[in-house]
C-alpha cells in the first residue's frame, strides 16, 4: 500500500445518512409505526392551528379555539414523543450487538449518536411532512362546513404556510429530542459488553 491514508477515524455525513436510510428501510414497519405516531400528533396540532386561524378571521377576532383544545394538542404531542422514545429504546436494544460491532470497526461514540439522530430526524421529517399537511387539510375540511367563504381568504394563505412550517419543525424537534436519551445510551455502550448481548 503506497498511498497515505489520514490518521483519523471519519464518518462522513453522506455515509451516516445512507446508513440511517438503510436501517429505516430494513425495519420499515417499525419505522412506519413510529412515523405514524408523529403524523397523528402533528396532524392534530396542525389541524387545530388551522381551524384557529380560520375562526379568527371569520369572526373578526371574536372567537378562537378553546384553551382545552390547545391543551389536548399539547398532550397529544407529548404522547407522541413518549411513543418515539419507547420505539427508539427498543431499536437500540435490538441493535446492541450491531453497535458493539461498529465500535470494533472504528466507530466512535459520536458516530453512533449521529446515526440514531439522523434516523429520528428523517422519521420526524417524513412524519411531520405528512402530518402537517394532513392536519392542515383536515382543519380546512372541518372549517369549511361552518365558514366556507373564509377558507381560502388571501390573508390566511400566509398563515397556512406558517402553520405547516411550524408543525414540521415541531415534528423534527420532537423526534430528535425524544431520541436523545436512547441515542446517548447507544453511544456509550462498552464494546465488550455490547458484543456479548443477547436480547
Amino acid at each position, binding site marked *: *500500500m503506497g*498511498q497515505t*491514508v*489520514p*490518521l*483519523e*477515524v*471519519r*464518518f*462522513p455525513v453522506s*455515509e451516516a445518512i445512507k*446508513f440511517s436510510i*438503510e*436501517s429505516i*428501510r*430494513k425495519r420499515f414497519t417499525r419505522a412506519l409505526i413510529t412515523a405514524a405516531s408523529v403524523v397523528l400528533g402533528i396532524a392534530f396540532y396542525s389541524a387545530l392551528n388551522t381551524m384557529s386561524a380560520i375562526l379568527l378571521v371569520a369572526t373578526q377576532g371574536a372567537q378562537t379555539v378553546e384553551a382545552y383544545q390547545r391543551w389536548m394538542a399539547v398532550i397529544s404531542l407529548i404522547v407522541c414523543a413518549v411513543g418515539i422514545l419507547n420505539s427508539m429504546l427498543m431499536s437500540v436494544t435490538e441493535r446492541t*450487538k*450491531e453497535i*458493539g*460491532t*461498529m*465500535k*470494533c*470497526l*472504528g*466507530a*466512535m*461514540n459520536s*458516530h453512533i449518536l449521529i446515526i440514531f439522530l439522523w434516523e429520528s430526524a428523517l422519521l420526524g421529517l417524513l412524519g411531520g411532512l405528512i402530518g402537517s399537511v394532513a392536519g392542515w387539510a383536515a382543519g380546512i375540511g372541518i372549517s369549511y362546513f361552518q365558514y366556507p367563504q373564509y377558507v381560502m381568504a388571501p390573508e390566511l394563505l400566509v398563515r397556512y404556510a406558517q402553520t405547516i412550517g411550524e408543525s414540521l419543525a415541531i415534528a423534527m424537534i420532537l423526534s430528535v429530542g425524544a431520541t436523545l436519551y436512547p441515542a446517548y445510551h447507544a453511544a456509550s455502550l*462498552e*464494546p*465488550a459488553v455490547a*458484543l456479548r448481548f443477547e436480547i
Partner: protein
Amino acid sequence: MRYEYTVETEDLAKYYQMGEITVKALDGVDVRVRRGEYMSVMGPSGSGKTTLFNMIGGLDRPTRGRVYIDEVDIAKLDAYELAWLRCRKIGYIFQTFNLIPVLTAQENVMLPMIFAGVPREERIRRSVDILSRVGLGDRLNHKPAELSGGQQQRVAIARALANDPVIILADEPTGNLDLNTGLHIINLLRELNREKGVTIVTATHDLKMIDISDRILWLRDGKIDRIEKRVDVAVRMEE
C-alpha cells in the same frame, strides 16, 4: 516500522466483582506474539480466552497489567486513538459473525474503509478484491441473511482484512460452523496469514486449529498453562 512483537501482554489480569466473590477471569498473563505468527489460544470454557481476546483487542480495560500493540501501550490511548487502533491495526472475527444485517456483503467490507477515510473508488476496488480472494466474488450484493454461515464468516474475514491490519483477532471463528466449513475457514485463515504476513491470534475450542498454528497457548483458570509449538503438540500426542 517493523516491530518484532505485534502483541505483548505484561502481567495481564481482569477481575470481576460478583457481590462478595472476586472472579479472576485472567490472573497474570504474559505473552508475546511475533509479527506474522499464528497463535491459537486454547483452554476449557471459562479459562479466560474471550477475556484475553477483549483485552488484546482494546474492547475492555484490564484490572492490572498492560497490553502493547506494536509496542504502544493501549491503555494510554484516548478515544480517538483507540477508535483508530480498532479501525486500522486490528481486524476482529467473531463466532457469531456479527455482520451488519442491513448492509450487503460488499457494503459490510467497505464500512471499516469508510471509517479509515478511504476514497469511494478505492473502497469499491479493494472490497471486490478481498471478497474475491475469500471466494465470494459473485455474492457482493447479498445481504447476510442470504448467505450461509460459512459465507458470512468469509465476509467477516474479508471485513477484518479491509484496512490491512497488523493483527487479526478471532474469537471462536469456527464455533458456529460445521466440520467441513470450519476446516475451510481455518485453511483460509492460514493462507491469508502466510500471504499477507498478518499476525493472527485465535481463541478457540477447535482442535483442528492446532495443525495450522505456529504456537498454541493453553489457558487454565485465567493463567497460562503452557505454550507449545505445533511440533511439540504432535510429539505429545504420540506419547
